[in-house]
């Protein structure tokens, strides 16, 4: 429980049960301080429920939560001023201009310094690129603008931890790029960023660590290199004699080569010797049109772990 804990977020056996079924089950997260941590999972897997519990909005059915070294929800008054969050989309008073909304939100925080309020609000608006639209009523904002305003709300004060639920949702490619740059910038200032997303490309681009969740359970978590190593390396062959090539592969101890899109695909160890394979194929007079190694991607791993289906989990 000391503030010197290496983890910005730590949960132990976190469980949330809604009328009989577990939305979150036995979740034990370890988010290292200063990391950009991606929280991955298909829709309906319990990501947002977890975030609500982390912020003290929902009570866990069982388990412990520690945020910045202090236990939640009991220490919420002490911890939450240091945490900025975007939860399940931004929300504002539609009849107030964007800037007035931020002023109001900042006023609600007792620990916020009133004398620097206007300056901090303007700085946050500038950071998300909303300075020009600040005087417009929030109800007239586009989805992307609302999203930016939500991010500005999370950045009203210097924070130690940012919890962002799908921060690039609704943003155009330019906006998405800007948000990712913003996240990298914040991370370089030492702020821990915990972001949930179902966009794997995004996670791969900005995150240093990730956790994959499905149906309420944590499947795996760790640094991104570690996670990638979990996926399988493959060799893909385009040859003119598939049967003969299969024999060669089996001879090398490669298991279960299968035909896919006109090529022969097989799982191999990461340090597989392609040169040796090519030499063998040539020796057997099998024509090789193309031979390549496919390194594991997070996407393949994700789909492998969570299934290819389109249906929402529950």
């Amino acid at each position, binding site marked *: 429980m000391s503030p010197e804990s290496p983890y910005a977020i730590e949960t132990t056996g976190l469980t949330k049960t809604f009328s009989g079924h577990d939305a979150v089950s036995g979740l034990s997260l370890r988010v290292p301080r200063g990391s950009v941590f991606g929280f991955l999972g298909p829709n309906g897997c319990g990501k947002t429920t977890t975030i609500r519990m982390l912020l*003290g909005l929902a009570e866990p059915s069982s388990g412990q939560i520690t945020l910045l070294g202090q236990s939640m929800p009991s220490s919420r008054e002490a911890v939450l001023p240091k*945490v900025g969050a975007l939860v399940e989309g931004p*929300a504002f008073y539609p009849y107030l201009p964007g800037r007035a909304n931020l002023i109001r939100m900042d006023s609600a925080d007792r620990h916020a310094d009133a004398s620097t309020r206007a300056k901090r609000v303007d700085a946050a608006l500038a950071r998300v690129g909303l300075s020009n639209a600040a005087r417009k009523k929030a109800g007239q904002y586009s989805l992307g603008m609302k999203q930016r305003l939500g991010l500005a709300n999370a950045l009203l004060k210097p924070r130690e931890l940012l919890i962002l639920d799908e921060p690039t949702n609704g943003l155009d490619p330019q906006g998405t790029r800007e948000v990712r740059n913003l996240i990298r910038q914040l991370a370089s200032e030492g702020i821990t960023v915990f972001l949930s997303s179902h966009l794997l490309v995004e996670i791969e681009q900005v995150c240093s660590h990730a956790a994959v969740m499905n149906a309420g359970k944590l499947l795996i978590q760790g640094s991104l290199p570690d996670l990638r190593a979990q996926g399988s390396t493959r060799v893909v062959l385009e040859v003119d004699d598939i049967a003969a090539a299969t024999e060669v592969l089996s001879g090398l101890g490669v298991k279960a080569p299968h035909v896919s899109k006109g090529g022969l695909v097989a799982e191999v160890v990461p340090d597989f010797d392609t040169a040796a394979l090519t030499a063998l194929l040539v020796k057997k007079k099998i024509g090789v049109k193309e031979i390549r190694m496919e390194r594991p991607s997070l996407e393949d791993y994700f789909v492998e772990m969570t299934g290819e289906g389109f249906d929402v989990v529950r």
Partner: protein
Amino acid sequence: MLAAIAMIPIVLALAVELSSERLAPGEGPPFLDRVTQNGLFTGFTAMLLALPLFLPLTMSVVSGDTIAGEAGQGTLRYLLIAPVSRLRLLVVKYLGTLAFAIAGTFTLMIAGAVIGAILFPIGPVTLLSGDVIGVGEAVWRMTLVAFYTSISMTGMLAVGLFISTLTTIPVGAMTGVLVTSGVSQILDNLPQFEAIHPWLFTHYWLDFADILRQPIELSSMGSNALLQLGYVAVFGSLAYGRLASKDILS
């Protein structure tokens, strides 16, 4: 909404002024007959007319919106993670409704006095007990009536706060509160329920008329204050119990 409240005495005064019929003393709703003789009665008459439905309507709009409004807009979760403690949120919201109650009752009385002064003669006021008081004293009594009605509303505002914690749909909460006011008034009129009459929060609402006697009758004022305080305590606690224990999923 304050503008709408101000309209009540204005419309009333205009209606009285523009109608060709003059009511004989004692005819029609209480006080209405006196309006033409003395414009200062406009406020009292308007209060009497507004109390059964219109004033509770405005109060239920304000109190029903307190928590349900924030929940419906999605801003409740952001307020709570600012952080704002759930207790502080309830207290601040409730104080807001109290401010509206005071603003509403005083607006009604002031608008009444102003339009009454414009359209009708003003002068010494004949009280219900028969005594006559000067204009200055009458204005003081108007202030008391406004203040008394504000207190009368506090219990209902607490009920509204509680109902507001039960839903994320503000209109639902507003309707719920208004219905409680309606039910309370109906029960208050049924002799079969006489035993519970002193416990209904609407019971002493119309007793503001006691301020228009000489000397001012304080008995019902005291009972009203106590009753309203009781409602505030009970429903305030219920609201806290509800908000503090529920998951905020809005």
